[in-house]
């Protein structure tokens, strides 16, 4: 999943590496960092994903060393798409990509690319079967220029929905944000977007309110849960 916000691009990828019914690894990082301000979130066949992404990264690195020019997100996306398209009728890569980056000139950008080499610049994008569920949530809730907290909130809503309606339990995610300061990992934490619920403990009723768009309430929320539920 990818979301473009106010001065940043958020990329999230599930961290399960599995084949058929067997889970090999549940902390796989599928977001490959191309350089300080660009990353590639990839989904698809494990071997193809790894091979193609590493190939892209090393070639971009070579280009930047050769020419002393730092490529824009658009240029990297275009190059990657060309590679995908060239390999399509020779040795196709079964990989779906979301290229996210931040430029000084263009700001945050997100490029959606599928395994057949089609590419689109989007404000938000999702790959995989889960997109059937999460895209509708993004359609409704996304607004341009969201803050990081809002974008993370949106992401959490999507993840929660997948937990409810999607067959595969995608609950382990690696989330990275790319902005002017570079790329860093975001810890989603274990607090879910609160819904209106009543908690009864020792005869005490507490109303924990909706804290989705009021991130300042989250710490209060957390404290309340800890002290009451402890």
């Amino acid at each position: 999943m990818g979301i473009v916000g106010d001065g940043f691009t958020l990329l999230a990828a599930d961290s399960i590496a599995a084949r058929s019914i067997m889970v090999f690894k549940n902390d796989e990082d599928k977001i490959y960092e191309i350089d300080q301000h660009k990353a590639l979130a990839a989904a698809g066949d494990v071997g193809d994903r790894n091979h193609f992404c590493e190939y892209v990264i090393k070639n971009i690195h070579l280009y930047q060393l050769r020419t002393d020019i730092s490529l824009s997100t658009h240029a990297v996306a275009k190059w990657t798409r060309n590679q995908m398209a060239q390999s399509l009728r020779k040795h196709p890569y079964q990989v779906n990509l979301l290229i996210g980056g931040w430029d000084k000139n263009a700001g945050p950008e997100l490029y959606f690319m599928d395994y057949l080499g089609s590419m689109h610049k989007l404000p938000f994008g999702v790959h995989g079967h889960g997109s059937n569920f999460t895209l509708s949530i993004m359609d409704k809730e996304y607004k341009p220029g969201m803050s990081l907290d809002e974008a993370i909130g949106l992401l959490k809503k999507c993840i929660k929905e997948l937990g409810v309606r999607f067959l595969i339990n995608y609950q382990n995610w690696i989330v990275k944000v790319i902005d002017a300061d570079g790329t860093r990992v975001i810890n989603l934490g274990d607090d879910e977007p609160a819904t209106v619920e009543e908690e009864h403990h020792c005869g005490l009723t507490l109303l924990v309110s909706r804290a989705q768009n009021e991130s300042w309430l989250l710490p209060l929320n957390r404290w309340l849960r800890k002290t009451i539920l402890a």
Partner: protein
Amino acid sequence: SMSRYDRAITVFSPDGHLFQVEYALEAVKRGTTAVGVRGKDVLVLGVEKRAAAKLQDPRTMRKIVKLDDHICLAFSGLSADARVLINKARVECQSYRLNVEDKSSLEYITRYIAGVQQKYTQSGGVRPFGISMLVVGFDADGTPNLYQTDPAGTYYAWKAHAIGRNSKTVLEFLEKHYTDESNEESIKLAVKALLEVVESGSKNIEVAVLTRGNVEFLDDEQIEKYVQMVEDEKAEEKKEP
């Protein structure tokens, strides 16, 4: 006689010379001077910058280049040949990373460059590269390295070395004054050695300083600072009887 055995490089002369390779070395000796110094925690490369013509853009005359994030290189000789070799080396650096997921060691890449140079002394229809190179960088385990390659395809590791014009003078100076006391001393040594044979002034030399995890191309101001330090030291030395 000499002329009968220097046509095609694949021919040895009766007394065991490969004349084309030796002539390539002559081409190197006519190139601008380059100096390399290895310290305990620093690597310094300095090159003589040929004065730019009035209408020429000095930015296009880069003589110290980056092969990878942790490897730098300076050369003496034919710049066109250097461009080709440098390109091959850059691709090899990335290829190594792609296959092994580690940055290459200095020895590996130097061996590769020397290997390419050697290939061109033993193939039909090609001539050797008219380049000697000084390759510097820190290995993954932190060891500093300075290697030199030549048109014959041999390579050696050095504590300090000079190639190109007047390299003999510079090398003698380095042998006399080599120190790895501190980073500052190593940089000063490189600049001082270069200034033995290059006209004084920051616009005539280019300097790159490598420390573990960082490559810095000194700008004119910084170079001028070192040039000044060196000049002051020289003046002091003259004063003492």
